[in-house]
């Protein structure tokens, strides 16, 4: 094996991955150009103007809310000492395990007219007691804030941990009060992290089409789902998908603008943590109460509700007899998650390897191009993938080869591929973070001693990255378990996952039956989330030796 050709393989892998990731987006652009004016006319009737309005309003409210809740809680838990602060520090990330569509299901049921909160109010205050209208955009936004604030919280905590202490201390020494010091010194310092968190929140909000539907909110992503699943109007779905994609891109641009190139990573690694100020009396309890309130609304009440529902109808079908559909859905979810984790793990290692053996710019570009999948909202990626599948089908049919029809009507292999595109960034950044402390000269040394890249992969990179791959696989599996829009749009008939089952049973108002699959998702996802972030937040690893990011997927935004 000549070193030259051996060195080319990882580069080819990087480029192949980049092309695969880019294909759905390219297909959308080609699709929208080729669609002509027909779909626009049909969309006029479906109300895309109103949908765009709700989407923008929702984005604004959710971003604002997560910044206030996530940023506020991060400052509270980092800068002050109060009862329960240590536990709250890591418990506050737990909503990451509760998908928005589960939270929305629980709260729309609890808040509905016949639900316990409204009937309780009527019992106390009489039948004409006023209750705020529930099926509204602000309520949907509040639910999404509870589901998504941990992104902002985690990034803000990381920023406070590594950057805030010295400047804050200096500002205090120079005579600023604690609040003014926070607003004038810490807030500007944390701006890049807050912007990055807000971006992630906004992208997740764009992807969501299930949570909002419980509250009767009609967004562009809801439109995509309805136009595709209801009418199979591919051109119209394409147009809507491109609209959402443009929104996502402008959000990326806005984040970059907000950051204005600033990245306040300290030239000298400053790892002194903030010295938390003890709070006393009522203020201390107010701080504890704020954390408890958020945790209660986002985790405790939803889980308790799901447990109650699961207890009323454990494993029962609609007629009360044993229902094997839950077990089948659980098996499908597990299979899908395992395969996506395996594929992402392998590709991520190959990409990290490629970037290390060949440090030229075009390799770097290809590797980073593969990471854009995370910025494409789920429903958009799904429609793009459909267009690609349709093109492949046409090609297969023309060549007289079988299998094309299955590709278009949905296949597990297709699902795994699209999931891999979506979650590759998460996998890659996690693996790369584990290798970041390893000097590139180690790779260079192995290469210069004559080892072909394949051997460098097997004997240097793989052994070193192993723990990172494991973490990446777990994180990707959790995200795949929670994912809903892609699986709903692309699954083969009869292939129900836990997420699909929750969605379908909820759509049929069989909330109690949706309890068990929803609870399963939350509990399975909570375990790794709790274990990983508990360690990160309680004993931050020394950043000089091994700068693992608090949240791997978040680090990407800084890249």
């Amino acid at each position: 094996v000549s070193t030259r050709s051996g060195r080319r393989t990882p580069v080819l892998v990087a480029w192949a991955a980049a092309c695969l990731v880019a294909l759905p987006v390219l297909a959308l652009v080609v699709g929208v150009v080729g669609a002509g004016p027909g779909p626009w006319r049909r969309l006029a009737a479906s109300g895309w103007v109103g949908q765009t309005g709700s989407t923008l309003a929702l984005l604004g409210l959710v971003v604002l809310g997560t910044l206030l809740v996530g940023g506020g809680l991060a400052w509270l838990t980092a800068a002050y000492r109060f009862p329960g602060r240590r536990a709250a520090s890591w418990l506050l990330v737990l909503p990451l395990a509760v998908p928005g569509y589960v939270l929305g299901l629980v709260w729309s049921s609890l808040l509905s007219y016949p639900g316990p909160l409204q009937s309780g109010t009527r019992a106390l205050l009489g039948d004409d007691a006023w209750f705020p209208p529930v099926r509204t955009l602000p309520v949907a936004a509040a639910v999404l804030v509870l589901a998504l604030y941990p992104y902002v919280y985690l990034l803000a905590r990381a920023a406070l941990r590594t950057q805030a202490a010295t400047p804050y201390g200096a500002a205090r020494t120079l005579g600023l009060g604690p609040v003014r010091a926070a607003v004038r010194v810490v807030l500007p310092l944390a701006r890049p992290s807050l912007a990055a968190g807000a971006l992630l929140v906004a992208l997740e909000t764009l992807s969501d089409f299930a949570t909002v539907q419980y509250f009767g909110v009609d967004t562009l992503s809801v439109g995509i789902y309805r136009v595709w699943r209801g009418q199979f109007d591919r051109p119209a779905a394409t147009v809507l998908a491109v609209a959402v994609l443009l929104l996502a891109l402008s959000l990326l641009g806005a984040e970059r603008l907000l950051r204005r190139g600033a990245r306040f990573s300290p030239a000298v690694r400053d790892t002194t943590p903030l010295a938390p100020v003890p709070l006393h009396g009522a203020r201390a309890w107010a701080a504890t109460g704020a954390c408890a309130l958020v945790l209660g609304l986002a985790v405790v009440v939803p889980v308790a509700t799901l447990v109650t529902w699961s207890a009323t109808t454990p494993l029962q079908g609609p007629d009360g007899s044993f229902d094997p559909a839950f077990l089948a859905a659980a098996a499908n979810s597990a299979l899908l998650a395992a395969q996506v984790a395996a594929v992402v793990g392998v590709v991520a290692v190959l990409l990290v390897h490629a970037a290390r053996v060949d440090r030229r710019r075009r390799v770097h570009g290809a590797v980073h191009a593969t990471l854009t999948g995370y910025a494409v909202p789920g429903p958009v990626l799904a429609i793009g993938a459909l267009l690609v599948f349709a093109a492949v089908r046409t090609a297969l049919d023309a060549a007289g080869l079988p299998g094309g029809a299955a590709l278009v009507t949905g296949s597990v292999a297709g699902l795994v591929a699209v999931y891999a595109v979506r979650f590759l960034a998460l996998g890659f950044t996690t693996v790369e973070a584990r290798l970041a402390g390893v000097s590139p000269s180690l790779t260079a040394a192995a290469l210069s001693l004559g080892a072909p890249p394949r051997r460098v992969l097997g004997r240097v990179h793989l052994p070193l990255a192993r723990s990172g791959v494991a973490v990446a696989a777990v994180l990707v599996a959790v995200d795949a378990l929670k994912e809903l829009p892609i699986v709903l749009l692309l699954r083969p008939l009869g292939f129900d996952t836990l997420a699909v089952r929750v969605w379908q049973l909820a759509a049929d108002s069989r909330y109690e039956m949706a309890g068990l699959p929803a609870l399963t998702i939350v509990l399975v996802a909570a375990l790794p989330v709790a274990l990983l972030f508990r360690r990160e937040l309680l004993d931050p690893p020394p950043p000089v030796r091994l700068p693992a990011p608090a949240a791997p997927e978040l680090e990407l935004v800084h890249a």
Partner: protein
Amino acid sequence: VPVRPTSARRRRALATVALGVLPALLSGCGVALGGDDGPAIQVYSARSYGAEEAFRRFTEDTGIRVEFLNGNDAELRERLQSEGPDSPADVFMTVDVANLALAAEQGVFRETSSPALQAAVPEDLRDPSGRWFGLSVRARGIIYNPERVDPASLSTYEALGDPALRGRLCLRTSTSAYTQSLVASMIANLGEDAARAAVEGWMANDPQIINNDVEIVRTVAAGGCDVGVTNHYYVARLLAEDPDLSVDVFWPDQATSGTHVNISGAGVTRSSDSPAEAQRFLEWLATTGQSLFVDGNFEFPVNPQVQPVEQVAAFGEFRRDPINVGELGRFNAAATQLLTDAGYR
């Protein structure tokens, strides 16, 4: 320290990957299988719950096995179209007439001429050329809370625009096929102008627009609305779970055009390689198996010889709109436009 990857380790890794990938390729097939001998038919069915028992009894009665694939109307229709003449489906069964009519238009069905089906299924509930047949009836009733509403004050769908009901009305979202087909029937019966005036009347009452029927029934029963419009079987299902629920069904338009109904129905596909067995399946469902097929979901039988289940019979007899249900599809686009114009979400 780098560890030397042994070949055993490599093999184990390969085996893991293979184990992960193989089942997934297989798990794409969600078709339920019965025994493995004798004739069999494949049914693409949009009926999500309770059809299995009827299918099983059909096999017992006739020796014809039933393999079925569940999905929603539109996705099954899309799949049939995509599979074309290679489709394994013998029967396509939907829960909505619009999808039957569309599938018929797309050439999915073959024409079936069956005296048994013609006798069992009334003329207005099947395709004139025999491409599809209604198998159960779902009526769009006005539901009310008997503690708050005197049913004598109710009359027609358009009368729900009565200002007395201001703020007391619960309706289903405009994206629902049920809402669209109801408004389509109003256009067919009253003409577009009167239908528009009726929908504007509803909107003037500032209705709560709720995105599922069960929620509407529960809200009416809890007193959140006095009056709503839902399919009758949701009321029956909830009353079966809780007989104390304060809700009842009123049959509208009895003095005029009759209550709007939709059907769940099926047809034999053009691609079927066992059309005789498929036809026998439809005949059995409309006759011997009719009760079994409709009762589990609290629907009305299409076959006038068959009595509805007790909870449904309790709603009383009614005269249905005699228009052929397949005709309503023609007015669907007009209905959607009208709803959008009226500001109905």
